[in-house]
């Protein structure tokens, strides 16, 4: 019960008027970021990160994590009203959300989406509150080999669980590791892969990569598709909200199932997008009204939104407890921790109690505030989407450029941003996943360090990764995840003749 006390202490940290203001600003900014094309959770947080360098870490993480919650909420608005997913994880929300809006039930759909998001997030926060301290306590005993095995598992999960072809995931991920390796070697201090270019001495910063890949890349994709926003009118009044809330408890089974799927997919870094699709798919198969999915069923909004928000929130659990982020946005927040001078990982729970429990408390409050903000301000956010792309696009370009510059006060980073942007556009079109690439840039140095330290301990023998039960189990899980596509393929082939 020590944790409950810690949590209450966390609330007392958060409940200063200043932090509350940051929370409110964060949520509103987050929803705007979630609504606009080209700005998303990950690069929105990346752009604003340099502004928080001088803030106290607790206030900074509250501001930035609230931007993340806001962006998660915001994705649903564009999906339902405009049939344009503002974020990849809200694609599944368009399937039933937009038909509902077309039938004049936009208010119901939005209320259902926001409420489900809230439920999903709350479930995930409870999971974090209960599980994260245990995981952290357990992980305190980890040596370098165990650390590396956790990284290994995280990256293998991407290969096994992604929709993209496994070899493309591997290629994208390894490019990320290669970019992370450029510059000074953290172990020996030697320069490597710079080829004499002084600009490369410091290596590639993942914040610049995130802003380019997700921000500029997204704008280029939007340009290509020649988007014109034709949205449905948005109106939410208290009567609609209450009416929908009365209806929602009926879907508690779907909701609970989606929460669990979301948390699972968020903690193993598969992310919010596959979680939302999986949850929608299962709900469609299991539901009594499954055949009507896609025509405007409220259950078809509940399932993906709950799972997406649960996944997005629980992605912070491994980031806090192990130092392994579960999503690109969590990766950016992890980068923030390093910049504010905090060492992510299990020690955080011992040495930075104020910070950790303040953050967890802010997750509870942030989602309550978020729900209230989105329910009351939907028309304002919808109006932002009506600003033509010809005005929005250059403004987003400028904001991205400023974000890239402020990372290191370096104009070369702005050039790199554009390079990453064009690369992001091409990679996305060729269905290479960007999330593992970004995570590899963030974790590359740490993974390498753990790997080399393990080898040093074992004098170069690779058997160190099977030297005890714990590390062996994690490595085995990683291998299973890595070869999951091949295994399920093989199983399919073995079973196929029997069916015939």
């Amino acid at each position, binding site marked *: 019960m020590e944790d409950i006390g810690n949590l209450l202490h966390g609330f007392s940290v958060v409940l200063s008027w200043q932090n509350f203001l940051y929370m409110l600003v964060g949520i509103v900014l987050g929803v705007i970021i979630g609504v606009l094309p080209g700005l998303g959770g990950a690069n929105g947080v990346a752009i604003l990160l*340099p*502004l928080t360098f*001088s803030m106290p870490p607790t206030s900074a993480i509250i501001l930035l994590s609230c931007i993340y919650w806001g962006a998660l909420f915001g994705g649903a608005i564009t999906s339902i009203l405009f049939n344009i997913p503002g974020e990849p994880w809200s694609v599944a929300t368009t399937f039933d959300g937009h038909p509902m809006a077309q039938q004049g039930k936009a208010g119901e759909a939005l209320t259902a989406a926001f409420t489900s998001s809230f439920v999903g997030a709350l479930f995930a926060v409870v999971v974090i509150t209960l599980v994260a301290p245990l995981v952290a306590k357990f992980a305190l005993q980890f040596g370098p080999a165990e650390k590396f095995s956790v990284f290994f598992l995280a990256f293998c999960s991407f290969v096994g669980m992604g929709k993209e*072809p496994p*070899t*493309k995931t*591997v*290629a994208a991920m*390894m*490019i990320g*590791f*290669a970019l992370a*390796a450029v510059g000074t*070697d953290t*172990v*020996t201090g*030697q*320069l*490597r*892969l*710079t*080829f004499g270019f002084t600009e490369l001495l410091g290596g590639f910063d993942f914040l610049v990569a995130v802003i380019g890949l997700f921000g*500029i890349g997204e704008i*280029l994709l939007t*340009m*290509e*598709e*020649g988007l014109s926003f034709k949205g449905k009118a948005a109106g939410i009044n208290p009567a609609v909200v209450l009416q929908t809330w009365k209806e929602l408890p009926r879907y508690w089974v779907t909701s609970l199932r989606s929460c669990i799927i979301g948390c699972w997919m968020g903690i193993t870094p598969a992310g919010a997008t596959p979680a939302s699709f999986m949850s929608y798919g299962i709900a469609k198969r299991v539901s009594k009204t499954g055949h009507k999915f896609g025509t405007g069923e409220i259950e078809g909004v509940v399932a993906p939104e709950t799972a997406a928000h649960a996944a997005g929130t629980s992605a912070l659990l491994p980031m806090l407890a192990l130092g392994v982020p579960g999503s690109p946005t969590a990766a950016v927040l992890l980068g923030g921790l390093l910049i504010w001078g905090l060492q992510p990982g299990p020690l955080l729970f011992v040495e930075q109690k104020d910070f950790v429990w303040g953050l967890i408390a802010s997750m509870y409050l942030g989602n309550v505030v978020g729900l209230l903000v989105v329910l009351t301000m939907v028309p304002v956010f919808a109006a932002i989407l009506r600003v*033509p792309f*010809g*005005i929005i*696009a*250059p*403004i987003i*370009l*400028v904001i991205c*450029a*400023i974000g890239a*510059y*402020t990372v290191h*006060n370096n*104009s070369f980073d*702005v*050039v790199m*941003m*554009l390079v990453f*942007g*064009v690369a992001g*556009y*091409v*990679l996305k*079109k*060729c269905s*290479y996943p960007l999330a593992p690439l970004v995570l590899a840039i963030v974790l590359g140095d740490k993974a*390498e360090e753990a*790997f*080399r*330290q393990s*080898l040093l301990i074992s004098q*170069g023998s690779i058997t160190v990764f099977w030297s005890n039960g714990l590390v062996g189990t994690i490595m085995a899980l990683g291998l299973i995840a890595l070869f999951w596509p091949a295994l399920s393929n093989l199983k399919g082939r073995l079973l196929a003749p029997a069916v015939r």
Partner: protein
Amino acid sequence: MSTQSDAPEARGPSHRHAEMGTAAFMVLLGAITIAGSLKVGIGWAAEGPQAGFFPFWIGALIVASSAFNFLRAYAGGGRRLFAEWAQIAQVWKVVWPTAIYVGAVPWIGIYLASALLIAGFMRWLGRYGWALTLGISIGLPIIIYVTFEKWFLVPLPKGPIEDMLGL
């Protein structure tokens, strides 16, 4: 995605070629990584694995997986387009002004460059009137100036104009 255009008049680079090009470029990146790793040593030294040890294997994995991707794209047929030429032209309309913008920032400062970028976009792509164009293209840099330099005390690159104004 609106790339699966089957209309007969739609023309553009084929998706297959784009995939092959991307994979080939990645093989090149992998080769560069391997070359750079070999330079600093990939073996075992007194301090354990040398600096090039880890990136060498990363480079090898890039080459292997990208070579596989290349072959798969090569073998896979299909007449799917990467994008229509008209769509690529749209993308290009954003890329080259941004490239000039990015190149101009160190010389004329971010404020003037941003004002010009926004104004150019709005007049040329959006065909807005001068009043709105000037309002936004001058107003936004001022807002940015106040937010960053005054409120958060983060300096942004400045050019001759700011020097003249003594900012």
